[in-house]
């Protein structure tokens, strides 16, 4: 019983190091429109980050003692994590509920989720006064157990590991490591269950960060139910991001996707629209209940009240009806429009809680500086560059190599 069990695929006799170095070379045209726009911003952002660490956070941001958390936390961390929620929802549907219809998009969504957490946890470092202390919750140099951030730090670390394990079979396929692939594939379901359990708490945990700021957040957005609201909205935020990013990837990486997956695309988007419609219906009523419970209806007739109504009606109720209608009439374009509106609504909601509604009554309102915007964009563009690098090399959108089926 001496099977010729190949540990790794032979890359035409090249060593693994030569293979890795050859993979670093760019594939495709270098001077595309996206590259021309993003590269200067990324370089400028890098410069600004260096300045931030030399001269302190006040040198490039408009943060003050009154508003210590601004765009980087409000948008990069809080909103970015909400959009990464597609990973846990999709893995739940495919691996737990066995809805195999969505199997073809799991890998790309998990990749997106992983990159999102890595980059947005990284963006969190930018806000820390002593960034080297970020390991404290883990190594125990004063854990900080009374802070919600202890939970957030641990969850981010564990979830990144879980997502890496979920994604690692694709890496093993890229490297041709057959034995590793077998072991890692076996760990997938455990990583998925762990990841979903973690997600439920840290999605709501980011909302819990703001529970202590009762007097600082506008009453229409502050309630003891912020964590639950954040968790429920992360479901449709993540799925809308999957629809949005999936549509873009479908066009950009058209050549990689197999014939079968092309045809399945519309059906997948339609199924996701249905789930979004249902979740947003529940979310709308939850928000209504919280609004009634807060007894703040007389605040509706204020500018912030109109802003609240705009968010609720224009960016939750409207996209919900659009999802409902476009699902029934099978109108893919309308589904994508609804997804964009939903994403804008989630951004609006998160920014309202963290930045706009935070200290709305301050004498000097916090407005992010252009440098904060550049750094935020630089973080997002870097993430997209790495995403593109991975997609072009690893079997994420294209089918796995044939030896994968032999392994089973």
């Amino acid at each position, binding site marked *: 019983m001496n099977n010729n069990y190949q540990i790794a695929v032979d890359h035409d006799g090249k060593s693994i190091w030569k293979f890795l170095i050859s993979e670093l070379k760019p594939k495709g045209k270098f001077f595309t429109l996206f590259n021309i726009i993003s590269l200067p911003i990324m370089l400028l952002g890098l410069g600004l980050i260096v300045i931030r660490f030399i001269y302190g956070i006040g040198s490039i941001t408009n943060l003050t003692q009154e508003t210590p958390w601004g765009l980087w936390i409000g948008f990069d961390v809080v909103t970015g994590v909400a959009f990464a929620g597609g990973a846990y929802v999709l893995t739940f549907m495919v691996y737990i509920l066995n809805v195999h*219809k969505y199997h073809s998009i799991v890998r790309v969504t998990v990749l997106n989720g992983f990159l999102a957490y890595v980059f947005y946890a990284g963006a969190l470092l930018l806000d820390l006064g002593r960034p080297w202390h970020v390991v404290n919750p883990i190594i125990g140099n004063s854990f900080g157990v009374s802070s919600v951030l202890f939970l957030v730090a641990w969850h981010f670390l564990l979830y990144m590991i879980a997502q890496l394990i979920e994604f690692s079979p694709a890496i093993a396929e890229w490297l041709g490591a057959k034995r590793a692939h077998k072991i890692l594939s076996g760990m997938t379901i455990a990583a998925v269950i762990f990841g979903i359990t973690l997600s439920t708490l840290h999605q709501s945990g980011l909302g819990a960060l703001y529970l202590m700021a009762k*007097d600082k957040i506008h009453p229409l957005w502050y309630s003891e139910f912020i964590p639950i609201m954040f968790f429920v909205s992360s479901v449709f935020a993540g799925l809308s991001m999957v629809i949005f990013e999936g549509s873009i990837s479908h066009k950009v990486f058209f050549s990689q996707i*197999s*014939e*079968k997956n092309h*045809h*399945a695309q*519309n*059906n997948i988007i339609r199924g996701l629209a*249905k789930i979004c*419609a*249902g979740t947003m*219906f*529940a979310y709308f*009523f939850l928000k*209504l*209940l919280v609004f*009634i*419970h807060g*007894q703040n209806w007389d605040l509706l007739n204020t500018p912030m009240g109109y802003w609240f109504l705009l968010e609720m009606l224009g960016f939750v109720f409207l996209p919900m009806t659009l999802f*409902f209608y476009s*699902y*029934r009439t099978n109108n893919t374009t309308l589904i994508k429009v609804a997804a964009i509106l939903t994403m804008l609504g989630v951004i609006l909601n998160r920014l309202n809680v963290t930045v706009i509604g935070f200290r709305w009554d301050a004498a000097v309102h916090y407005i992010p500086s252009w440098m904060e915007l550049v750094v935020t964009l630089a973080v997002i563009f870097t993430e997209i560059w790495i995403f593109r690098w991975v997609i072009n090399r690893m079997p994420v959108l294209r089918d796995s190599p044939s030896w994968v089926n032999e392994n089973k």
Partner: protein
Amino acid sequence: MDGFSYSDIFATKGIEYLVIIAFLALLIPFWIVLNKQSKMTRQIQSTLGVLSAKILRIPQGLFYGKNHTWMYMEKTGAAKVGLDDLLLHLTGKIKFRYLKPPGETINKGDLLAEIDQEGKLLRIFSPVSGKILDTNSLLNDSNGMLNDDPYGKGWIYKIKPSNWIEEANTCYFAEDATNWSAKELERFKDFLARTMKDYTPETAMIIMQDGGELLDHSLSALPDEIWKDFQNEFLNPDQL
């Protein structure tokens, strides 16, 4: 304590209960309308040739054997035997070949006939024992009869049964037959999924649309090996 305010969390209890009831009340029509398959889709499905349980014809008064044959006792005491609609939808247009002549006595599970599609064969075994009275001359002339009217003019044998009550008892009847046919369709989809693994994705596209809907006459596009597997799984006389 500084800045401590006490708000009555039960003040709006009544309204909140009403909102929850309204939510649940609205959820039911919301979900129903969301999931309702529009008449248009159903019509398109049947014209496009999608095979779903809804378009199967299953007369409730017939006895259906597990090998997709049906039998029906007429007032004269003779039983008509035929093939069911699901089998014919799966195979598509076929040629029918009698293997037993009238006058012969057969037992349940004996080979009665063969259906043929361009060399691919399926064997039909008898769901009933008895003496063969007659064959259907219409089937020899126009073979479309079998597919168009499998329960009426497309009957295949007239048999005088020798053990009707016991053998009819092992068959499906009325709603059980309808439920069983729907289950068989699902079982066929699983069977396809299992066998299609070894075949090219192009063949899979001819059989199933991307929603997982089975196209009509799926077996006609598949090779002989799958017909043999189909014979063992679905038309096995040992199941009778």
